[in-house]
């Protein structure tokens, strides 16, 4: 327990001390949110009063994705490359213990992100309403799905490749994830593809929970849950420690 707590603290410290991951966790989401909420260039779906009502849940989904998918993948990939994971293999810190510490670190960073992004969005006129419980459930499922994808890359690929692929996926999922651009604005094939990806499922679920007061579409739950099961299982099956 002491080992786990110390490891979780160390993981949080390393994430928050790392300039790139701070930029990714806070800088980019705050920038995108502020820019597109004030400069009215993106297509907002019909019935949205103010761009921020559409953007804020999408940016929260982006924040979850950047921490679970990108930061976790890159950090873990390089730790594997540096032999840190191998070295930990001969200490009493168990692998489940290490994994749990990483999950706690992701959740703590997400709390920091929420604590920054929600006030910024509120300052831009966002008034979140509604179903906190279902928003929380969506964030947890999204965290598991994205962390699983991050660890899937980190455990199987060279760190440099993980870095490139995580950043590429981040961009693709940002554009196809209903975070800035509504899915309805995408052409048919892309829209169909986007609907089965975890990014759009998470932003749809958050937008329904926090914004328009509608029930989260069943499709979003199914897609989120499927990724939250498949990605960690695939990661566990393929992860190489050295």
């Amino acid at each position: 327990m002491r080992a786990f707590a110390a490891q979780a603290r160390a993981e949080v410290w390393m994430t928050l001390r790392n300039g790139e991951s701070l930029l990714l966790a806070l800088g980019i989401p705050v920038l995108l949110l502020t820019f597109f909420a004030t400069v009215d260039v993106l297509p907002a779906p019909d019935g949205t009063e103010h761009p921020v009502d559409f953007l804020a849940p999408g940016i929260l989904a982006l924040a979850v994705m950047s921490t679970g998918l990108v930061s976790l993948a890159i950090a873990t990939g390089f730790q594997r490359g540096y032999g840190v994971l191998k070295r930990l293999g001969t200490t009493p810190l168990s692998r489940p213990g290490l994994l749990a510490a990483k999950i706690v670190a992701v959740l703590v960073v997400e709390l920091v992100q929420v604590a920054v992004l929600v006030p910024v969005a509120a300052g831009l006129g966002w008034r979140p309403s509604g179903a906190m419980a279902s928003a929380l459930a969506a964030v947890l499922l999204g965290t598991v799905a994205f962390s699983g994808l991050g660890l899937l890359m980190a455990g199987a690929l060279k760190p440099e490749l993980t870095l490139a692929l995580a950043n590429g996926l981040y961009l693709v999922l940002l554009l196809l994830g209903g975070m800035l651009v509504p899915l309805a604005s995408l052409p048919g094939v892309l829209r169909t593809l986007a609907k089965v990806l975890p990014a759009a499922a998470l932003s749809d679920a958050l937008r329904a929970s926090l914004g328009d007061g509608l029930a989260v579409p069943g499709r979003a739950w199914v897609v989120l849950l499927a990724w939250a099961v498949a990605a960690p299982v695939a990661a566990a099956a393929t992860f190489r420690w050295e």
Partner: protein
Amino acid sequence: MAALSVDDLVVRYGPRVAVDGISFAVEPGTVLALLGPNGAGKTTTVETLEGYRRPSSGTVRVLGLDPVADRAAVVPRIGVMLQQGGVYPTMPAGAVLRLFASYYPHPVAPDDLLDRLDLQAVARTPWRRLSGGEQQRLSLALALVGRPEVAFLDEPSAGMDPAARRVLGAVIRGLRSDGVTILLTTHDIEEAEKLADAVVIVDGGRVVAAGTPDDLMRSGGGDEIRFGGPPGLDAAALAAAVGGAVAEDRPGEYVVSLAATPSNLARLTARLAEQDVAVADIRAGRQRLEDVFLRLTARPSAAEGERSSRRRRRGVG
């Protein structure tokens, strides 16, 4: 019961045989040095004992336990120093050591270890900014912070300056007197000679010699006299003068096939004096461990070993 035992260990990586039937045991509270050229199978053997690899055949035991199957019981009782890396690059030395201390039930106080290993001055320096020798000493500290009963030190002196080597020597002797069992791999023959209770020399995945440093240095050394001098001496003329065959083993390293008796030595030195040969050293009767090592792991025999193991593999496959 031996603290460590390796019994007919074979480890294959795909078609390559890295370890080809190695056996040895380490008694509790002793230091064993595993000596051998690059690619001899030292690291593979150590990593099998550490539980990183499974034997292809044969068995290894650490404190009587299987390091893979009984991992949870083994890891709190061992300390591991990897050959390189293995540390969070951005984390300061002191923080890494405190983190590792938190993994163990009864750790050494991190500050004491930093003092002992002369790392207090760099306690706030991130790992990646440490010098090679400082990284080695921190790796050693990480191996020792959990009060291990068995310490595995893979090339511990690599990259260390002479002062750091003395610190390392003192630490190893201190551990030994505390009853810690130590397995170290090294290229540094002098280090093995000074620190080890027993030496196992491996080459081509097999044990080529084993014993105490004294045993090894005495063995086979009685019937030759060795001396160092300028390369290219006339070996035939010298042989005729002293009455025994003379061979230039390596440039500037001569072996005279004569029993190491005072009269033979006198004849040799008289002849060398006549010729006014600048002699670097003369060794008779008792070889240095380096001579034993070089004789046993000389390239031709290593190549021969590889050929024969390839033959064996074909036989097996």
